[in-house]
């Protein structure tokens, strides 16, 4: 029998793979800055992560008898891997990456049916699982932001030394892990404020947390991701709803509470340019599969993440909260979609047509 093909017959050459690759391309400024600030460890993380991700993806596709080439070339696993690589501590040992990617690709993505079906952002599932399972490694293996080129006190590892440490756990003689690492700016502020040890002004005086805009070091990374994100917006790769509502809510809440108690609340700029805020706002929260899809839903979704980031950073048990906030809003996305359906043409006209 003749099989009917349905209109339309016009198609522009769009594809999921092209979209994914464009996003990856626009992450490069942020990644380069992150390597510059935190050392080669980030690079090692990303490469390890990509290798693990692609091999997990391939084996699951093989087990499930799916076309491997079609799905591998959609680059979605690649993007997940890169986000995990950037998000992990720069000095993360290889097995941390391995476990993270395992959970991301196998559990959070493929068990749900692969691309398009996962309910939760795979990279964030990985991050959250690692954070609650290996809190020590996840919080302490942050290399002090030292700017590779300036080589302050020689306290950075070279590429080879970094590989040696992350794969085999061997540090160069006379260097200890403590001398390399320090708490993140968000962590420093949180610990000081919640224990009542210091006020914002006192932390500022110590000079190890605040940079020009936000957290010392991380502000540059955030700025680079912001640039990449703005280009994505301009190119129409993502819609404005999620990043704008996320950043606006985070900024508004920190402004609101900050104006009450200046001593214990860092400025909105600090919130916006510390931790993984920009990475989260433009590259993680905008993951279309797990986000809300209606225009209104996307605004609520972004605002929800922004609010949760602020709440958990300020009153919760973790210094940064992108992963938890994104996961919690992932849970709400189906319900948001359901309750924020746009008014369809020709429906509910009575209140509309009276213009």
């Amino acid at each position, binding site marked *: 029998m003749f099989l009917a093909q349905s*209109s339309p*017959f*016009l198609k522009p050459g769009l594809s999921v793979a092209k979209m994914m690759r464009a996003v990856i391309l626009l992450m490069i400024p942020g990644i380069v800055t992150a390597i510059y600030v935190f050392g080669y460890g980030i690079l090692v993380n990303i490469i390890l992560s990509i290798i693990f991700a692609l091999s997990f993806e391939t084996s699951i596709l093989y087990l499930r008898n799916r076309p491997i080439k079609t799905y591998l070339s959609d680059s979605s696993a690649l993007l997940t891997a890169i986000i995990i690589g950037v998000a992990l501590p720069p000095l993360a040992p290889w097995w941390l990456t391995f476990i993270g990617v395992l959970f991301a690709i196998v559990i959070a993505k493929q068990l749900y049916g692969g691309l398009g079906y996962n309910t939760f952002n795979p990279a964030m599932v990985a991050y959250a699982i690692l954070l609650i399972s290996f809190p020590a490694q996840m919080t302490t293996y942050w290399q002090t932001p030292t700017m590779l080129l300036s080589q302050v006190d020689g306290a950075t590892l070279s590429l080879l030394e970094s590989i040696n440490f992350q794969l085999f756990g061997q540090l160069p003689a006379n260097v200890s892990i403590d001398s390399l690492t320090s708490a993140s700016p968000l962590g420093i502020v949180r610990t000081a404020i919640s224990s009542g040890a210091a006020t914002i002004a006192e932390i500022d005086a110590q000079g190890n947390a605040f940079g020009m805009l936000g957290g010392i070091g991380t502000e540059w990374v955030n700025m680079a991701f912001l640039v990449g994100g703005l280009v994505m917006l301009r190119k129409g790769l993502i819609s404005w709803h999620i990043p704008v509502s996320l950043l606006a809510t985070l900024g508004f809440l920190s402004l609101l509470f900050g104006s009450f108690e200046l001593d214990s609340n860092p400025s909105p700029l600090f919130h916006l340019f510390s931790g993984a805020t920009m990475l989260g706002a433009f590259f993680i929260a905008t993951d279309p599969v797990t986000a809300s*899809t209606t225009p209104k839903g996307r605004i609520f979704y972004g605002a929800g993440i922004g609010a949760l980031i602020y709440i958990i950073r300020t009153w919760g048990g973790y210094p940064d909260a992108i992963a938890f906030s994104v996961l919690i809003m992932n849970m709400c996305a189906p319900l948001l979609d359901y309750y924020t359906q*746009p008014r*369809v*043409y020709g429906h509910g006209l009575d209140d509309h047509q009276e213009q």
Partner: protein
Amino acid sequence: MNAKQNNTIAQTMKEAMYKLWSFPGGITLAGNKSQSNKETISTAKTPKQLIIPLSQHIGQPAEAVVKVGDKVLKGQLLAQANGAISAPIHASGSGIVSAIEEHAVPHPSGLVALCIIIDTDDYQQWFDCQPLLSDADTAEHSIHNLTHEQITTQIAQAGIVGLGGALFPSAAKLHTAEQKQTDTLIINAAECEPYITCDDVLMRRRPEEVILGILLIKKVVGAKKCLIGIEDNKPEAYQALLAAISGYKLPHTEPQIEIIPVPARYPAGGEKQLIQVLTGKQVPSRGLPMDIGIICHNVTTAAAVYQAVYRGEPLISRIVTVTGGAVKHPQNIEVLIGTPIREVLDQVGVAYNKIEKVIMGGPMMGFSLPSIDVPVTKASNCLLISEQGELATPPPAMPCIRCARCSDSCPMSLLPQQMYWYAKARDLEKANAYNVFDCIECGCCSYACPSNIPLVQYFRYAKNEINNEQKERNKANIARERHEFRLERLEKAKQAKAEAARLRKEKLAKKKALDAKKAQQESDATASDTDKKDTNDSADLIQEAIARAKVKKAQQQAQKKNTDNLTADQQRQIDEANERRSIE
């Protein structure tokens, strides 16, 4: 007209001060119209055989009024409208009806339908046409003299249907509009689909016909406002219509015809979108434009109305855009309804070896033909003969990544991603809850989808399935009623039977009792005389019954008497009949 002039006209069109609204979503497409809109309208030859389907409109198929072997003239009625929503079909050429049979028709399924097939002759003699007006009459006055009844009857008899693609019988539409309060007549001249230029060329070459047709429709619906919506990428057509309108000075008391350029963005020519752009109003879901006082007609329909009223000609031909990479000279050609597409292509000149697809209609909403041996119908506005690589063959579909590009481009503000999700899972109830029936199948979502999912087909599938389910449900309800009725009937029959059995039994019992009594009486009779009266009674009864039987027998014999004095012939016939009966 040169390009520079065009630009200035386009500029004026843009600057024309009309308050316009806009519709959400939509996509910008390459027009691909310049290939076919330059030349004049050519005329296709009368083919040797015309294949005219009986169903070329929404509603009941027409009923054939000719027989095989009948000689028909051009324009003669072949099949009459069947019911209120139907349209007659006319012979598009003179000749002999050689068959009324099922033949392949242009339809996405590639299935057959009932067609009247005419072997044409060389004379092409017209049937007696009876126009209401002639071109010599001055337009406004003569139209004024016509009654609504006259115009609608003429339109109904000419078999005019919505030629923009809806194929709704125009007379029926006008009839409803007449009864309702209609304040705006919108003429759809947007023609937003790429490649198609038949409306454009019609407006350029025959603007007077269009305007007169519009005046006729306007007269019938009695609209207070008349707007022609035209996409701003058709400066020549705009100019031509303007010039034609200025030829007919309407009295100031009459509502003027306004030509309104609308921004070229697909699907601006969709009825609902055009209404929204021009008036800011929305047609209620599952309602009609009439519900908000608007009636919409296509320019080509207006021209057909002109033909019917001024020439008396029924709708037996239409302008078809033949275009696409495989066509040597893309052009607009006036083709008789029923002409096989193969003959049209032969005449226009097509590189058969280059053909990839033959699409009837535009590339966004048309359908690909399984065969070119199907006739041109009233719906055929465009034949798009694409060559390899012209229309991208979509790569295999990937899973939906919920990027929402489809919902961003949907002019109806639907959520295609959700409808697709549920249509794919066959959760039709949910698909319906997401208003899949409001989908106009414009194809924007499929076009925008980076995963290349055939969304429109999913929605068509879902709609078909839901309708079918509804149909089956109705059928099941009828079946249940019939079944319950049957059970009831059987129950009644059973009760009646039981009742009858009971009565019989009672009677039997009575009789027995009576017999016993009788026996008793007989034995007692000798002994006693007191009961004699009873015995006499029963004896009387018996006597009466015997008498009755005798009378009956006599009557029967009396009836029989008509066979007593028969002729020999009659007797023989009776004997023969009896013989046959016994054999059987």
